[in-house]
């Protein structure tokens, strides 16, 4: 993809990413993995892994990496710049009147509508990652639905639980929820554990 197309694409993502970096995951997957097919799911999972370990906001790192894979140096620059352009423009517009904006019923309504969708997108990102770590294949939603209503399609052959992945995911979730241990440490330990458990 040429840098200008990347710029526009990430500017679009920047306009709709309310609520943090993980919201970008479904956006990038829909556009670049499913619709255009330029990145495969496995590569994307590894890319997010690197984005999470390297310094910098996850969303920004992922955008830069995708930009680099798609368009080299200029692709990386235009993707990350595209991602911040909406906040530069909207931030300047809102700068003098943010207190009034916050009271405005329209603005409040928009945020109230968008928040649950952002939450759904984070859950969706979690499901996608479950299919790449805890399970050995993407979660087959339609198959699960058929099994539930008794049409018994069953689960596909390659869909199994990965014990190593499950153990790491569970331990990380508990530690992250209950203690103040740093995410960087969790990731480093998971990488070491994974090298032995997930082969």
């Amino acid at each position, binding site marked *: 993809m040429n840098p200008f197309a990347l710029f526009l694409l990430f500017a679009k993502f920047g306009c709709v990413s309310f609520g943090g970096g993980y919201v970008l995951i479904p956006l990038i997957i829909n556009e670049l993995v499913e619709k255009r097919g330029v990145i495969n799911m496995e590569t994307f999972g590894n890319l*997010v892994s690197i984005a999470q370990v390297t310094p910098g906001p996850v969303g920004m790192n992922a955008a830069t990496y995708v930009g680099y894979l798609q368009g080299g140096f200029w692709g990386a*620059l235009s993707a*990350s710049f595209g991602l911040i352009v909406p906040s530069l423009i909207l931030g300047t517009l809102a700068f003098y009147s943010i207190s009034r904006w916050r009271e405005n019923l329209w603005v409040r309504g928009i945020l109230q509508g968008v928040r649950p969708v952002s939450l759904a997108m984070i859950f969706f990102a979690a499901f996608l990652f479950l299919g790449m770590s805890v399970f050995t294949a993407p979660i087959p939603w339609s198959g699960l639905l058929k099994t539930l209503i008794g049409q018994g399609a069953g689960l596909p052959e390659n869909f199994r639980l990965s014990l190593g992945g499950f153990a790491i995911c569970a331990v990380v979730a508990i530690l992250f929820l209950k203690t103040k241990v740093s995410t960087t440490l969790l990731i480093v330990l998971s990488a070491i554990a994974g090298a032995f458990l997930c*082969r």
Partner: protein
Amino acid sequence: MDKTYWKKLWVLFFTFAKIAALVVGGGLAILPVVEETFSRKNKWLTQEDLLEMTALAQTIPGIIACNAAVYVGTKLAGIGGMLAAAFGVCFPSVTVIMIIAAFFPHLEPSNPYVLGAFAGVRACITGLILVTAYRFAKKTFTGRFEVIVTILALFLLLMKINPVYVILCAMPLGIVYAFWRKTRGDAVLPGEGLK
């Protein structure tokens, strides 16, 4: 363009680069560092300014650290300050990722240990995202509307509907809901559903 102006631009760039690089946890984890540098050490921002910054960062879309940078930069040094601070947020990602990407342009390792390590990190990220989703859900589920919209949106996403459309559809829905609550006379608390 006197010397203090350029010094401000440098402090903005440097501080936000530092924040982007070192502050893990995302979102409002950056607030204490901004307060320390711009309010306590340099006395450039007041407490009200910090509240305004938080409000702005959470209202407009985009990376939260970048939204905060836009506010602080504009406040201290106009457009130039805004750009300096925003580029500061981008700087660590762009430089570090470019170096890594230059070494791993394909991201398809073949060594079983490396593959395992990546699988381990993916499992770790799954855990992190699940906990993030859980915390986000606890703050978001304040009423029936939020729960229903979340379930509906999740269903649409699983049907592979473009997330952009799902968000765009949720905006008018939220506006209708806000006006409906107003006509019903429900007390709408300031800042509710935003934190």
